[in-house]
């Protein structure tokens, strides 16, 4: 079986895969990173979103060999080494942007990509449109949209979460 080498959350990983093995299967089954979830089989729900070389992708529709040599960040790799949460994680908690938590890892990874790729500002409509590939069944998105808007200034060094709440 071919070998795929990845850097996952800052650690080197080398795993044997079949041609059909998906990136999400490598993460969950071979590396034990079960924070990345599988919510569908048609690339619709976004529970499986991770970052590959800094870009949000759906790991359930990515073959492991396609990303050989890449750097992968999952939800487990977001917080700082001392446990300090990423501002997006913090915002999701502060704004009650999660209920059952199942879509949350993918939602957070997509949201970070959305904020990162919009350095000049992010309207509510842009957030709603940007979440097109992520389904949440619990929240009605209301608080997810608010959390992302609140994380934007923090991630771009233009304010704090507390200031965003005012």
């Amino acid at each position, binding site marked *: 079986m071919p070998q795929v080498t990845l850097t996952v959350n800052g650690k080197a990983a080398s795993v044997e895969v*079949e041609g059909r093995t998906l990136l999400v299967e490598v993460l969950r089954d071979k590396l034990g990173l079960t924070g990345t979830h599988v919510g569908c089989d048609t690339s619709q729900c976004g529970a499986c979103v991770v970052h590959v070389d800094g870009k949000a992708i759906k790991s359930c529709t990515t073959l492991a060999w396609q990303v050989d040599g890449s750097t992968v960040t999952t939800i487990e790799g977001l917080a700082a080494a001392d446990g300090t949460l990423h501002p997006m*994680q913090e915002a999701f908690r502060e704004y009650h942007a999660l209920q059952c938590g199942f879509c949350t890892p993918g939602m957070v990874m997509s949201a970070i990509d959305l904020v990162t790729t919009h350095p000049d500002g992010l309207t509510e409509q842009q957030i709603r449109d940007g979440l*097109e590939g992520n389904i*949440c069944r*619990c929240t009605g998105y209301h608080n997810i949209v608010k959390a992302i808007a609140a994380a934007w200034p923090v991630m771009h060094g233009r304010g704090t979460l507390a200031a965003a709440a005012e």
Partner: protein
Amino acid sequence: MNAPFEGIGASVRRKEDLRFISGNGHYTDDINRPGQLHAVIKRSDRPHAKILSIDTAAAQAAPGVVAVFTGADTAGLGSIPCGWQIHNKDGSPMAEPRHPVLAEGFVRHVGDPIAVVIADTKQHAKDAAELLAIDLEELPAVATVTAATAPGAYLVHEGAAGNLCYDWHLGDKAATEAAFASAAKIVKLDLENNRLIPNAMEPRAALGDFDASSGDYTLYTTSQNPHVIRLLMGAFVLGLPEHRLRVVAPDVGGGFGSKIYHYAEEAIVTWAAGKLKRPVKWTADRSESFMSDAHGRDHVSTAELALDAQGKFLGLKVHTLANMGAYLSTFATAVPTYLYATLLAGTYTTPVIYVEVKAVFTNTVPVDAYRGAGRPEATFLLERLVDVAAQETGLDRVEIRRKNFIPRDAFPYQTPVALQYDSGDYFATLDAALKTADWAGFPARRAAAAAKGKLRGIGISTYLEACGIAPSKVVGSLGARAGLYEVANIRVHPTGSVTVFTGTHSHGQGHETTMAQLVTDQLGVPFSQVDVVHGDTSKIPFGMGTYGSRSLAVGGSAMVKAMDKIILKGRKIAAHLLEADIDDIEFKDGKFTVAGTDRAKTFGEIALTAYVPHNYPIEELEPGLDETAFYDPKNFTYPGGCHICEVEIDPDTGVTKVINFTAVDDVGRVVNPMIVEGQVQGGVAQGIGQALLENAVYDENGQLLSGSFMDYTMPRADNLPNFSVATENTMCTHNPLGSKGCGEVGAIGSPPAVINAVVDALRDYGVRHINMPASPEKLWSIINAGRPAMAAE
């Protein structure tokens, strides 16, 4: 510095969030056991067929395969049980056909499990399942209640004549007919409540484990009620004694009703684990979820309202056909009866009501409770009918509701359909919602939209629901095969921290936070020192789980009862330590004080004394501070409220945009406002989904057409507005918290508000009613059929 307020009424941030936002949640599919095998279920792709043969030889011989089982192997197991027996009008019991774990001789819906392949990896099991040679002889299928009840319809089960599960009724038929005979006006409406697929984001999963040394079984499963699964599966399907069976429902990624029921896959993996002496895991693909999770709603009804000349409701007649699907799911039979017909008085003083319900077998996935369960169906019917009545009598939509509301001073109020409402103020929720939604300013907004070529409408729904289904004695007399109490164990540790063991289950609702707040409020123990344990039958006492918005109203009440026992015992210990009479000991703010003095013992000191009983009234009092209480409610609770929806329809595309949504709900005592708002927002999103987007579609032969997220329109962020959510609360009078429940109000009150708004937007097109979902295609056709230019073509 004062400690932050973390008791009842505080929007405390959730305890459970830290693990979920860090990827450390522990869902069933995240659990793996040493030596674990993987099960893949081969399902029927035909709606109805006779199984002529199943050749498993090639699959058995495939790489990695350990076993293949079919219905022949599981025929000795019990039928998957139905938890509620309904009786027909003539007193005879409902038809209750066998529901096998794996198909026996026939398949009856697309998705019916035929065989299970168990292998060392999921891929091997999948590959081998493709090698099963199954010879089916197709039979005629019925997909809708209308087709299934047509004369000469092919039978889903030989024993269920006319495809009827039951023919049931409620109310005074003669009195209702008399009311109709004296009416000035009768309004009639035919309507459907569309079939939905719950689609919790976590697909169902089950992992069976067998310990050969002890002979004990463990099932990890995506369930809302692990004890109920243990009882149903252990006692009725597998014949395993309950003390040998542990059921764990760890973190569960949403339920909305669909994870209440005992499913075949749970029995299959548990049974197979025992046979193979190895753990067996099954996780649904989303495609499997679509064709094996219980669906929701699917009613076809005729409703008639009798009014006097002033617009007062005199009587209501309803006839409903309710789809059960191919087999009876756990609570399926209760949904269109005791959770539906009993709700048809709504918020109104309608003096007489008569309801007939026929439950019908079809060649579709079983239908059961989905968020709201019967109550959204009742509310949609009633609130649409009231709007049509307003239209046809010329009365204002708000005024006809006000005129018929149960007055504030009429509680407790006995309805003609069995329920007695304890409290409510429908005028207060209505007035607050009208103000927030700026109902009065709507004509100007409609005109402004018209100037842009858009059709704007506003709709209202004033609803009532019943939560926390109970009391056990009453539901038992109505056919329930279970009790509906709840239990809590409050364990105070020697150092004064507390663990709560609750029989309810959290799958998104935030119980770990809300229930900890109750302890902080009642016992004065800091929030950070309270943990809540749920979901493991080896840890918690026998509880009934979470559904029907019951966790706080019933489970929280059990906690209060248990904490009352803790406080009483603490007072006895304090009386001893402080050498005072127990009647003089007061407990407040975490301190036991001799009334009128500064002599006091902290909660922590009492806890330590209880476990280190050196100076202790040991003759009269057992050591320890650990109390359990069971709470069986005296009545349902009755949340209610007013939802207002404002929509704008683009006549060129038929697309409906929700511009504003206002919900003012009465949910009784609120413990955590942030969580309550989140529950309502999520419920409203599902209600808007039902009204505008979602639809489970079968073709006439019973093939499921909406079997993936590509075909079934889930609400996404760009389909929904920000919601305006508030509460106007009256307290529940019969439970110690005053809480009524908030989990379902959003999904119950909202669908008719949306459709009433859509109909209002299209009022110039002669539209009287639109069945859900009000899809762009449906609306575009109405709009274009009504256009003079188009009509001329």
